[in-house]
């Protein structure tokens, strides 16, 4: 699909988002700059969820009656739409509840493979993790892409290795030569940092992963919602992201993987809907995607997400990405002009829309509070990335992050707000 290059008509887009129409504290219009945490939802997404419940709700894949047929079709059509968005086949998309579950699906899948390998010779050795193995992540990861691997290492005896984060917010790629070896079983890296907006050099990492036949997982939480992502081009074995960060409802996450990995990976959650047959002696499992979707699925949420995907497709992901780069650029330049402000991460335009910064002498909680009072929603804290905070030598940061419904005037209000923060604490 070739997209025509357009500038986003944010005025019109804003109107599609009911939550942006309201005033918050002190009658201020809401300026929502916390999309890296969760995005807002356009009316078509909200309505799709309601409409599912009002018209077709029923047990997906479990019934043969009229509503069950409609619900099952709607659910599977959504899978198809989402598959198309990242260029995979529908069967390669697994619905989870959030990206965190998706990452656990992989980590526990490997644990299960490792445990089963003891009595099942058919388990693929690529999936079996031993004391001599290493798992490689980066210091920039979100906790959801750290703790599952720490946990897997604890249980298998494998070693967790870290690609260092430089003080300027870039990854130290020169370390790869030393860090990647025959021992490297899994490499798991973020595609785009939720703290700094940094883009990872996936091409380079893929090369290293392939050179030692390591499984490559990419945390695409911040990339799929904000830029064009083609699974086939990444060269990864699997990626994960969340629906709620890309206009979709809460309660729906995604895991996409190569057909080969989905074939050999043991299931994670077990129970209804993921079985082929169950006897008292033994259970056999369905093929992917069902194999990984135990229990009643979040069909309404999947249907809502498909509308979010349609909305993004209409704008075009290349345009979304350019828009966010432009806003981030304006934000970074604007912040750097205010005396006493430090911006973490890239200062150039080659970055995503998440901008972390600090105001000299002020704690992020206090910064966020004053901005909040002006109607500006930013996030303060460690952004679920404590190792990165440590490396940046801060306890926490303030983060402003944009999306398709933000425009230059939002950035202006925000920059003005930052100045007012200094005034507030200075003048007192």
């Amino acid at each position: 699909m070739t997209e025509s290059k357009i500038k986003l008509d944010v005025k019109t887009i804003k109107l599609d988002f009911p939550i942006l129409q309201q005033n918050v504290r002190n009658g201020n219009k809401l300026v929502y700059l916390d999309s890296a945490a969760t995005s807002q939802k356009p009316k078509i997404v909200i309505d799709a969820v309601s409409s599912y419940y009002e018209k077709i709700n029923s047990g997906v894949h479990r019934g043969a009656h009229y509503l069950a047929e409609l619900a099952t079709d709607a659910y599977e059509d959504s899978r198809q739409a989402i598959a198309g968005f990242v260029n995979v086949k529908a069967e390669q998309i697994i619905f989870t509840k959030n990206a965190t579950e998706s990452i656990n699906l992989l980590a526990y899948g490997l644990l299960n493979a490792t445990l089963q390998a003891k009595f099942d010779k058919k388990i693929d050795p690529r999936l079996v993790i031993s004391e001599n193995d290493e798992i490689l992540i980066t210091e920039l990861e979100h906790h959801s892409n750290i703790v599952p691997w720490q946990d897997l290492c604890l249980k298998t005896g494998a070693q967790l290795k870290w690609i260092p984060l430089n003080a300027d917010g870039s990854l130290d790629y020169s370390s790869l030569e030393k860090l990647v070896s025959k021992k490297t079983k899994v490499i798991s890296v973020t595609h785009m940092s939720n703290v700094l907006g940094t883009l990872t050099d996936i091409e380079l990492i893929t090369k290293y992963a392939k050179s030692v036949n390591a499984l490559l997982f990419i945390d695409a939480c911040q990339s799929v919602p904000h830029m064009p992502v083609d699974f086939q081009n990444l060269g990864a074995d699997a990626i994960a992201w969340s629906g709620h960060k890309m206009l979709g409802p809460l309660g729906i996450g995604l895991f996409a993987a190569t057909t080969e990995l989905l074939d050999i990976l043991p299931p994670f959650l077990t129970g209804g809907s993921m079985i082929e047959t169950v006897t008292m002696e033994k259970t056999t499992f369905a093929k992917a995607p069902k194999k990984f979707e135990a229990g009643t699925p979040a069909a309404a949420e999947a249907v809502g997400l498909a509308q979010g995907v349609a909305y993004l497709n209409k704008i075009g992901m290349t345009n979304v990405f350019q828009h966010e780069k432009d806003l981030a650029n304006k934000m970074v330049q604007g912040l750097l002009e205010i005396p006493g402000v430090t911006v973490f991460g890239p200062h150039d335009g080659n970055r995503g829309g998440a901008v972390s910064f600090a105001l000299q002498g002020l704690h992020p909680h206090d910064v966020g509070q004053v901005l909040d009072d002006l109607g500006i929603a930013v996030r303060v804290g460690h952004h679920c990335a404590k190792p990165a905070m440590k490396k940046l030598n801060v306890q926490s940061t303030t983060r402003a992050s944009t999306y398709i419904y933000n425009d230059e005037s939002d950035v202006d209000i925000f920059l003005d707000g930052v100045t007012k923060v200094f005034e507030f604490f200075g003048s007192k």
Partner: protein
Amino acid sequence: MKLSNMYQEVILDHYKSPRGKGLREPFTGQSHQVNPTCGDEITVRVKLSEDKNIIEDISYEGVGCSISQAAMSILFEQVLGKNVSEFDEISKEFLAMMQSKGIYEPNEDLLGDGIAMIGVAQYPARIKCALLSWMGVKDAIIRSKGENK
């Protein structure tokens, strides 16, 4: 009731008097198929000729609804004595019809009584019932050829 679209006379007839039912010896390949939704199961045997070309016998046993039972019986009638490439062609046509949501001009020469199944194609939850036996025979042929286990 528009149900008669699905349950055409000829289907109910095959259901009530299934052709070629029962598991027979000798056979060259056997397949067991399960419909995970309803738990229906079918065992299918195929006997290929020496040159692995002609389908000399198809025998089967299983529990299933009228659609799955009739589909098996129709398949038996339509495919017995044909060669494997003909089976592939018929099977492809049948699949295309079943996935058409009922908007399809099926080739009667190929499908025979099978064209009566077009009504089933309007009921997504039942398509699997109609396809189960076809998947079984396909698999049994592959096994006969030793391409798989």
